């Protein structure tokens, strides 16, 4: 036993030594509030996807664009009155949580599924749902398959360390079907393998399938199944323990949702600021002290709407009808339009 405990201690020491490499910057962070740190630095550091059309991808000028990116920009607008004060850190699925835990990024806005284990055992908190998604499959049209149930015996490409990998295993086990997984670290590699015919199907969140299909040449050659085999609420996550920061991220998202509900967007913000409607006045900081509670100035939401726009505008321009992805609002419509997007009121 003594021997064991000595070895155990040695191992722990070694483990801790490794850990410090991963979290060498945390001690300063742990005591300081994230907001103060961001202000000091003069920029928000946002963990985003390495490249997913519609969600986070650099455009031909090298500027990051997408729904997830817009949230980062909105937060920067709320803090600095300047949506461009963001530094983007592209992260793979494998790197993302460690990057957040170790303080390398201030938040993850990276199509990450909110699950119980991630919320409770990873030392992070999800601030809300940016996009209600579900997992599906993409296959070549020539295969003549229309449903996941017909995929028994197929080879399926998937990215490692995602909820998709687990859902895939669950689904096939549950339906007593056989499949051959081919697992890659990066999405691009998985898609490339699917495209060369290494796999019959490629699986990820439905929105991801639409985005990846854009890279595969002719859209008509590939079909995406309508059926979803899981629920994937994708949302931003922050480190646990800093409630001010959690609130700030959550209410940035809620401000964008509330604004859409109230019909305030980047185009009519000037008129809205002049309006006497009390709901408008509270959201835009003409009445009450809502910004102060977040550690911001009261015009925080007005800045978001001026520079980034409301949720509907962002959705439309990045993934919706106004974009190449052309994904219908579906579950992501406001509750008033039969969707799930519902935010707590500013009051």
């Amino acid at each position, binding site marked *: 036993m003594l021997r064991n405990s000595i070895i155990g201690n040695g*191992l*722990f*020491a*070694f*483990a*801790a*030594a*490794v*850990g*410090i490499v*991963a*979290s060498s910057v*945390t*001690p300063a962070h*742990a005591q300081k509030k994230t907001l103060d740190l961001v202000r000091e630095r003069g920029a928000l550091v946002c963990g985003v996807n390495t490249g997913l059309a519609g969600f986070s991808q650099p455009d031909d000028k090298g500027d990051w664009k997408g729904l997830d990116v817009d949230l980062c920009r909105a937060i920067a607008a709320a803090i600095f009155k300047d949506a461009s004060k963001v530094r983007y850190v592209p992260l793979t*699925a*494998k790197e993302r*949580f*460690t990057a957040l*835990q170790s303080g390398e990024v201030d938040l993850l806005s990276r199509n990450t599924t909110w699950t119980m284990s*991630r919320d409770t*055992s*990873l*030392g992070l908190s999800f601030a809300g749902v940016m996009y209600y998604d579900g997992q599906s499959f993409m296959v070549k049209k020539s*295969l003549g398959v229309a449903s996941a149930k017909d*995929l*028994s*015996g*197929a*080879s399926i490409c998937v990215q*490692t*360390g*995602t909820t998709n*990998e*687990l859902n*895939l*295993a*669950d689904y096939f*086990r549950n339906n007593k079907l056989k*499949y*051959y*997984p*081919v*697992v*890659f*670290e990066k999405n691009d*590699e*998985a898609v*490339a*393998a699917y495209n*060369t*015919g*290494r796999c*019959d199907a490629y699986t990820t969140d439905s929105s991801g399938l639409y985005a990846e299909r854009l890279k595969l040449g002719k859209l008509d050659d590939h079909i995406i199944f309508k059926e979803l085999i899981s629920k994937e609420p994708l949302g931003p996550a922050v*480190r*646990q*323990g800093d409630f001010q920061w959690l609130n700030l991220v959550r209410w940035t998202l809620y401000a964008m949702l509330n604004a859409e509900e109230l019909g305030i967007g980047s185009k009519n913000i000037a008129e809205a600021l002049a309006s006497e409607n009390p709901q408008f006045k509270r959201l835009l900081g003409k009445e009450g002290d809502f910004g102060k509670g977040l550690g911001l100035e009261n015009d925080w939401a007005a800045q978001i709407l001026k520079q980034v726009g409301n949720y509907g505008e962002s959705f439309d321009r990045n993934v919706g009808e106004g974009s190449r992805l052309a994904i219908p609002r579906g579950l992501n419509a406001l509750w008033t339009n039969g969707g799930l997007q519902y935010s707590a009121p500013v009051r």
Partner: protein
Amino acid sequence: MTSPPSASAPPPTKPAIVWSVYDAKTRGLVLQVALLLALGAFFYEIITNAADNLRRQNVASGFDFLGRTSGFDISQKLISYSNSMSFGRAFWVGLLNTVLVAVLGIALATALGLVIGIARLSNNWLIARLATAYVEIVRNVPLLLQLLFWYFAALRALPMPLESHVLGQAVFLNRRGLYLPWPADGSVVVGLIVVVLAGLAGALMYRRRALAIAIETGQRVANAGLYTAALALVPAALWVALGPEWTVEWPAPGKFNIEGGLNIQPEFGALLVGLSVYTAAFIAEIVRAGISGVPRGQTEAATALGLSRGQTLRLVVLPQALRIIIPPLTNQYLNLTKNSSLAVAIGYPDLVSVFSGTVLNLTNQAVEVILVTMAVYLTLSLATSALMNWFNARWALVER
């Protein structure tokens, strides 16, 4: 008991410890103690700091996760595994995949490296130049690129599964890999390997004994070669004929894939070929250096004794060259094992991909997972070096 003549002279005084900054010994001692303390403080600081941070961030720690259900599947497994088994089991699957590719890679790289190394010294202009070109090209292109080349080249060159290259309705080759007939129960193969190894060991022992007798008596043991071959082959033949029943599973086209039999996946193939080809270039140079290091007089003496060229190489040059070859060869073996972790780029489920990839991501216990992975590679490397050191000691020149 005669005292030496110098005994009458005063014995040399043992230098007393002088605590002075002008004393080199004292200064050294103080500096060393200070360094040790600083190092201790450094490690104490980072350990407590890391432990603190993990606790404060509410990140789970400990090794309990190894017993939890994994929930994910692995494409290539040498032991039975399914997504309802534990993370610990997934660890073993990944580890065995790493060991498999490392062991086969070392064997292939050694064979290929030996041939290329000898070819570089060939008198045939074309062969020597081809070998040189091989070494220079392969050695100077990054391994990761070579792996990607082999992987995607293989994928693109081969047909889709239902248009496979077929050999006698038994062997299929396509983009999803090579399919071979294989016993339905894999354990008989493991049994066969054990029996073959036992047979080989017996044959080797017999051969050494026969050689010892031949040296002792000056007479060759009659039919020694035949007996050696018999010892090596008969047990295996008996196992196949009389051992457990062989129910062979034949691969056959299914709806999407070839079903049944053994599937050697392209990820594995590409990794094995890539690692072997790359490492062989380095081994070839080591072999060439080893052979060049044997004095020319040895070859001339052997020729003078009437040995053929092949015999000279096999009996005189290579055994002496081995002494020079083995130590750097060990390095290459270690490199190959460590390089196998590049598997993650082409989707081969090795230890890094399965354990410090998927498992890390699902449990997010980075500290524990990375620690275990490092410990495994360390163990593998130390075991390889220990084996090679033993081999080296056996081949080292015994001075009489």
